[in-house]
C-alpha cells in the first residue's frame, strides 16, 4: 500500500534541528511568560479575535438549526408555551410583590452593619457559544468579552442559580469556569441556619461537594445552599444548590456532603453577568461605606 505519493520527502528539510530547538524555546518562553507574568493578556485577546471566525463557523450550523426549529414551530406548540409562560409569570409576579420592599429593607439593614456586600447593580446577558473547549475542564465560551466590560472573576448566574465565574476575557468572547470545575470553589452558607462553608467542584457536572464540614455539622439532605457573599466575588443570597446526600462516617472527622447544583449547568443557553455595587472595604472598621471606583 502506497500511502505517501510525493517524492520530495527524501530531500532533507533544511535545519530541522535548528528549527525544532528554536520553536521549542519560543514555546517554553511563552509558557513561562504567560504563567509568571501578566503581559500576554493583550496578545491573547488579539489571538482570540483571530480564533473567533473558526468558533463562529463551527457554532453557526447549530445556531441555524435552532433558528429553523424555532421558526417552524406549530401554532399549538406556541399556544402551549404561551400558557405555560403566563402561569410562570403569574407566580413570579406574586413572589415579586414584596421584593422591592424587602430589598430596600436589606440595604438599610446592611448599611447599619457597614456592609454592602452582595447587592447587584446591573447585569448583561450573554449566550453560550456552541463550541467545546477542553474536554477535561468544565468551561464554556460566551459571546461577551472585554468590549462589553466583562472582567476576570465576575460572577455568572443563570435562571436557576450561580453558574460560575469569568476565568478569561477576550475582546469578543470570554471563558466562564463552571461551579462544577474541580479548580473552582465558592463561599456558601446553608440557608436554613446560616452555616458557612465552601462548595468545591468535582468535575462531574451534576455534583458539587462540601469537603470542610465536620461530621457534627447541622446539615441534612434537602437544605438550600446560597452564596454567602464572603470574598466579594459573588453577590450574597443566590442559590448554589441543594444538599443531595450527607454521609457521616464516625471514623472520619469530616462529613462527606454532596450538593446538586441549582443552575442548569449542562442545559443553560443564556447567562447573566453580574456587576456588584461598589463595596465598602471589607474587614476594615470604616465609619461609613466608602465607595470604591467601579472596575
Amino acid at each position: 500500500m502506497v500511502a505517501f505519493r510525493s517524492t520530495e520527502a527524501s530531500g532533507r528539510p533544511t535545519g530541522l534541528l535548528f528549527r525544532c530547538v528554536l520553536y521549542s524555546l519560543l514555546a517554553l518562553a511563552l509558557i513561562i511568560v504567560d504563567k509568571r507574568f501578566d503581559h500576554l493578556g493583550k496578545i491573547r485577546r488579539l489571538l482570540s479575535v483571530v480564533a473567533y471566525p473558526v468558533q463562529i463557523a463551527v457554532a453557526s450550523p447549530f445556531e441555524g438549526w435552532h433558528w429553523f426549529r424555532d421558526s417552524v414551530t406549530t401554532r399549538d406548540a406556541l399556544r402551549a408555551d404561551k400558557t405555560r409562560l403566563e402561569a410562570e409569570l403569574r407566580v413570579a409576579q406574586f413572589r415579586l410583590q414584596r421584593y422591592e420592599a424587602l430589598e430596600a429593607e436589606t440595604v438599610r439593614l446592611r448599611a447599619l452593619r457597614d456592609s454592602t456586600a452582595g447587592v447587584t447593580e446591573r447585569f448583561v446577558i450573554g449566550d453560550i457559544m456552541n463550541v467545546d473547549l477542553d474536554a477535561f475542564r468544565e468551561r464554556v465560551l460566551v459571546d461577551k468579552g472585554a468590549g462589553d466590560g466583562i472582567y476576570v472573576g465576575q460572577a455568572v448566574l443563570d435562571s436557576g442559580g450561580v453558574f460560575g465565574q469569568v476565568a478569561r476575557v477576550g475582546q469578543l468572547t470570554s471563558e466562564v469556569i463552571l461551579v462544577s470545575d474541580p479548580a473552582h470553589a465558592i463561599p456558601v452558607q446553608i440557608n436554613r441556619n446560616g452555616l458557612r462553608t465552601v462548595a468545591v467542584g468535582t468535575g462531574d457536572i451534576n455534583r458539587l461537594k462540601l469537603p470542610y464540614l465536620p461530621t457534627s455539622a447541622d446539615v441534612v439532605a434537602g437544605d438550600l445552599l446560597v452564596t454567602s457573599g464572603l470574598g466579594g466575588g459573588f453577590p450574597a443570597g443566590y442559590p448554589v444548590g441543594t444538599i443531595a446526600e450527607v454521609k457521616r462516617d464516625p471514623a472520619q472527622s469530616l462529613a462527606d456532603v454532596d450538593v446538586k447544583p441549582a443552575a442548569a449547568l449542562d442545559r443553560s443557553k443564556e447567562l447573566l453577568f453580574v456587576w456588584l455595587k461598589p463595596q465598602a472595604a471589607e474587614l476594615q472598621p470604616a465609619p461609613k461605606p466608602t465607595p470604591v471606583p467601579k472596575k
Partner: protein
Amino acid sequence: MMRETRIRRMPMALSALVALALAVLPLPAVLDAFRPDFLVLVVFYWCIESPRAGGLSLAFFSGLALDVIHGVVLGQHALALTLMGAWATNLRLRIRVFSMLSQCLVVFALLTGYQFVLFWVDGATGNPVTTFSRWLAPFIGALLWPVLIGVMGKVHER
C-alpha cells in the same frame, strides 16, 4: 520547484483549518473524552508527506491556535506539537515504507508523547488533569490514522 511549493501550501492550510474546526465541534459530554486530536494527526501527515513545505512552522502555529482555543497556558500545545512534529519529520523515511499497522503504532507513540508533554506542562503550571481518560485520545487517533491518510491522499491529488 518554486511553483510546487506554492501549490502545496494551500491544502496544508485548508486541512489544518478543517482539523481546527473539528477540534472545537460540540460533542456530547460522554464522547468528548474520545475526541481524537485531529489537528495533531494532520500536522504529522504533512511533516511526513512534505517536510520541506514547513511542517514544523505549521506545527508551532497550529499548537498556538489550539492553546488559544482551549484557553490553556500559551505555548503548551505549541511545545508539544513542535517536539512531536520534529520527531515525525525525523522518522518520515522509515514511516513511509512501514506497513499500515506499524505506521499506526508509530503514530500511537507520537500521540502518546504529545499527550505526555501536555500532561507535563499541565502539572508544571499547576493545573494537573489526572483523569485517566486523557490517555484515550492517542488510541483513537492511531486507529484513525489509516482513514486520515486516505482522505489526505485524495485532497493532495487534486
